[in-house]
């Protein structure tokens, strides 16, 4: 499916929830409202012309700006069509909740946990939203722009000497 066809299909199905479909250097990016991400994921996986059956990664981004500060980025790959697609949703600082897609692609489970660990974005409906790399009792989110490079002293305890 070409990007134009994809844009037409998505706008027909999701209307204004699709913010934009852009192509830059041969890479297609869809920006969508976060409320529709689960339905959009299911559509992109199951539609015969899309068949994005592989979720390659879920990651976060912090633009450190007022309003919609964070983004969650889904990188998809279609094994039958050998095409790639990037889906972005914007997340505001006042409402860090995004619906999970782990019931659409099982591989989203750990990727969403990692995004939660690093950015503190809550994935609603996730079966096991725990920290991935950092200790359970850690209270900060290290990939946020306002987190200092060397960390917060005392936040990660060392063993007694």
């Amino acid at each position: 499916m070409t990007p134009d066809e994809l844009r037409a299909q998505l706008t027909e199905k999701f209307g204004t929830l699709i913010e934009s479909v852009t192509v830059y250097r041969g890479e297609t990016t869809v920006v969508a409202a976060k409320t529709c991400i689960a339905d959009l994921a299911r559509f992109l996986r199951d539609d015969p012309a899309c068949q994005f059956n592989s979720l390659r990664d879920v990651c976060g981004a912090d633009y450190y700006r007022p309003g919609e500060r964070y983004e969650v980025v889904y990188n998809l790959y279609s094994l039958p069509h050998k095409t790639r697609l990037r889906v972005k949703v914007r997340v505001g600082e006042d409402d860090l909740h995004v619906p999970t897609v782990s019931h659409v692609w099982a591989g989203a489970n750990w990727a969403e946990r990692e995004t939660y660990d690093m950015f503190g974005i809550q994935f609603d409906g996730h079966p096991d939203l725990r920290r991935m790399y950092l200790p359970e009792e850690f209270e900060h989110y290290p990939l946020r722009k306002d987190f200092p490079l060397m960390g917060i002293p005392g936040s990660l305890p060392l063993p007694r000497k």
Partner: protein
Amino acid sequence: MAMNSASEGFLTTRLDEIIGWARRNSLWPMPMGISCCAIEMMAFAGPRYDVARFGSEAFRFSPRQCDLMIVAGTVTYKMSHVVRKIYDQMPDPKWVIAMGACTSTGGMYRSYSVVQGIDQFIPVDVYVAGCPPRPDNLLKGLMEVQKKIARGEKPGQAEKVYITETA
């Protein structure tokens, strides 16, 4: 070691010295291989560099059978508790070699998650520079531990030894 052979067939020495001789020539390493330095540690144990020449070929994967911990790799805050627990399980007297830049100082990982030097939570006897150190430098580190035992030093208390990188 001071030894006197009175006549053919036996010799006399001090008990401390004979125990020290036995200990330093049979240091059993705990391979705390956490990242890429562990590859060089394997070369150090393998046939080309052959640590068996110094009596340390018996790498033990149980801390209870080891008396030399070679910490080879980047120690994160989360891993530091594991390193300390394994160190605590080793029987005394026990020695520690901090192998490589990350282990000694945090190295290139100047970051919130990496401990900037393992001496913040365990006593270190020998620091080996390099990223990673060559196996022969690690052999030098091992020989320095042997010299420390020969001098009768206590682990973690005497002056530290720093092995610099060779060109």
